[in-house]
């Protein structure tokens, strides 16, 4: 059996969480950026998409203390390169790289180089360079770097416990983030009945799907026009879609089972319970109960699971 220091497991778990979060932050900004491209004059979209970003990243208070208004420029500057904002992509990459630096022994050279060169490049960016490059290009770049890091870990890391903790971080974070991205729609449009089924509505759901790389997946999976219920079904319950909550929790139960340390009983129980809910749940019931309520409850339970993993394995005993 491999020996893994609790501190190392902690670094690996957070390294992958932070990178996954950076990727999803880019995805969230990307949705709003796309939504902001709607034809001028559609009043229901003005402004709302950028407030939504702050809502779902839990960063509204921090933002409003520093900026008067949630304009595209302000939110993007706050969420991308701001070193003072701990949830900016810049800060997330820096923190992930610090974890990697402390864990050079536990990761492969390829993984380190993927993270380190991302950090070197982003620390060299300025607001002006970012604007010149184009926001969309920057978001794509961040996604690519995250893919490169994850890909190199899958392709080069020993399949031991270190790997399991790294993967665990990816899926716990991704499940959380997918739930939050789906919730964007709730924050942007508290249903203005007249919009339901309109071109704007379609455009927004489409933007959301694209932001999680699911636009084509949706059509392959459902072979029908985009409807809110089916989009939610894809992102929550569809176990074939790798960013869905169900898919993430399929991975989490297996990983916790592989690890199964002496104090891991409660984490395994909570994960099993969440997994059963995603495995057997139905989207109609979710909509009856309220999508936003369902997602908030999921995010809380997913967080509790993370704390349990933390105290069972990652904190020095």
């Amino acid at each position, binding site marked *: 059996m491999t020996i893994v220091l609790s*501190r190392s497991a902690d670094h690996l778990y957070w390294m992958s969480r932070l990178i996954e979060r950076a990727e999803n932050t880019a995805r969230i900004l990307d949705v709003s950026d796309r939504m902001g491209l709607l034809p001028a004059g559609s009043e229901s979209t003005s402004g709302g998409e950028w407030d939504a970003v702050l809502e779902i990243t839990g960063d509204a208070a921090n933002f409003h203390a520093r900026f008067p208004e949630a304009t595209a420029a302000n939110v993007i500057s706050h969420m991308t390169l701001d070193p003072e904002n701990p949830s900016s992509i810049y800060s997330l990459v820096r923190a992930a790289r610090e974890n990697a630096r402390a864990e050079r022994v536990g990761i492969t050279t390829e993984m380190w180089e993927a993270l380190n060169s991302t950090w*070197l490049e982003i620390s060299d960016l300025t607001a002006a360079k970012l604007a010149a490059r184009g926001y969309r290009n920057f978001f794509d770049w961040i996604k690519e770097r995250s893919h490169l890091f994850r890909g190199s870990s899958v392709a080069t890391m020993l399949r031991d416990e270190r790997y399991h903790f790294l993967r665990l971080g990816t899926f716990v974070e991704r499940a959380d983030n997918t739930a939050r991205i789906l919730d964007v729609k709730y924050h942007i449009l508290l249903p203005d009945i007249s919009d339901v089924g309109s071109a704007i509505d379609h455009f927004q759901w489409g933007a959301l799907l694209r932001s999680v790389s699911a636009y084509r997946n949706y059509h392959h999976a459902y072979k029908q026009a985009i409807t809110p219920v089916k989009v939610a079904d894809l992102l929550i319950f569809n176990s074939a879609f790798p960013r869905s909550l169900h898919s993430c929790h399929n991975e989490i139960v297996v990983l916790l089972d592989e690890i199964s340390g*002496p104090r891991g009983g409660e984490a395994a129980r909570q994960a099993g319970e969440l997994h059963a809910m995603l495995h057997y749940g139905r989207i109609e019931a979710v909509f009856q109960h309220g999508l936003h309520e369902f997602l908030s409850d999921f995010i809380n339970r997913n967080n509790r699971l993370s704390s349990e993993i933390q105290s069972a394995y990652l904190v020095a005993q």
Partner: protein
Amino acid sequence: MASGKFFDEMHGDSDTVRDAYDAIARWLASVPAREFKAKRKEAEVLFRRMGITFLVYGTAESVERLIPFDIIPRVLTQEEWSLIERGCLQRVHAINAFLHDIYHDQEIVKAGRIPPEAVFTNPKYRPEMQGLDLPGDTYIHITGIDLVRVGEREFYVIEDNLRNPSGVSYMLENREVMMRLFPSLFSGHRIAPVNNYPELLLQNLRAVAPPGVTQPTVALMTPGIYNSAYFEHVFLADEMGVELVEGEDLFVKDDHVFMRTTHGPVQVDVIYRRVDDEYLDPLAFNPDSILGVPGLLAAYRAGGVTLANAIGTGVADDKAMYTFVPDMIDFYLGEAPILSNVPTWQLSKADDLAYVLDRLHEVVVKEVGGAGGYGMLVGPAASKAEIAAYRARILADPGNFIAQPTLSLSTCPTFTERGVASRHVDLRPYVLTGTNSTVVPGGLTRVALTEGSLVVNSSQGGGTKDTWVLRGGRRP
């Protein structure tokens, strides 16, 4: 030995090329400067991507820097290396015998060869070590001996690093990068490999496990990511395949040391610690240390764990004890030193002090316990004001300083902004000791990149070079 003329390792004292540098000289003549520049850029990218950086202390915020790498290798012949190797082994054997002696029967003191106060009032002397028997009687498992060359066969030892010598990762990575950039250079030479260093280190560490432990677990203990040599700690742990631990990862129970892991405690038998004595155990040494492990000293004294290097080796590597190493070689081995010491003036002695104060502009003055090139005076390079300020420091506490003549460090061809030029170098070979000792053929060559400068420390703007030891004399 201090003269205006320097020994150049490529040309010797003449205009011809020495045999060892034959191929290098032809290579230098055949490659256009533009290509060297491109290769140097490539090397820098490689180092940065590998994350080979060090932290510079003393600035407002410590920053990560790259140590400049010079792409022209330094070449030593088999004969030159053999002299260095024998000299280093001799020193390590004598110093190890000295450490065992002063922490046991103190015969060298009783024989009057070393004054008792030089040992027992030395702040690095550790009374906790008195009477303690260590596996293999080994105190200094890893040493780095700093040498300078002043002539064809003339080498001087500048200092013995017996506590936590660093820099070996540069020796290994420099070779790696050179082989990647200039593979054809290697096929034209027979160069002794250095890349088995981590494996040798691991073998030696395993050999000194506490008695009775057949499958020892080794760990490397680091002060953490803010230590200037953190990259090296990671590198060595990785290469050896051992855990890199910090104080908080370890705890002591029933005189044994354990790591905290995801599956509960795991016993550690040998700790290659890159943490200074003072910070090892807050119960025994510095109570404010958060780097250490409470109870580690007690476990060590009970024989539950081996530390490499041993506690208390610093007593033998300060700049005052250095002057006694030739006596140690004579006393314990009955031999004459193979490598010479640099004549050293002890400023605690009134005669020496007066002599040195008259010659501050031509000597080098160092703090007795200093390291890393911090806080030293290089007389010939210092301004009048700097000399005056340093004089005041000496007078305030003469016993804290030693002085040495300014050595004519040899030069090697080095790539500079204005093409290839001679720059001064030193050499740090590494000696590993478990139950016996080996010197890995090579070492860290540090080069003073500033024209005329004699200070090679990386913290003072020095760079490094790959160091080649040629096998079988001349190139086939």
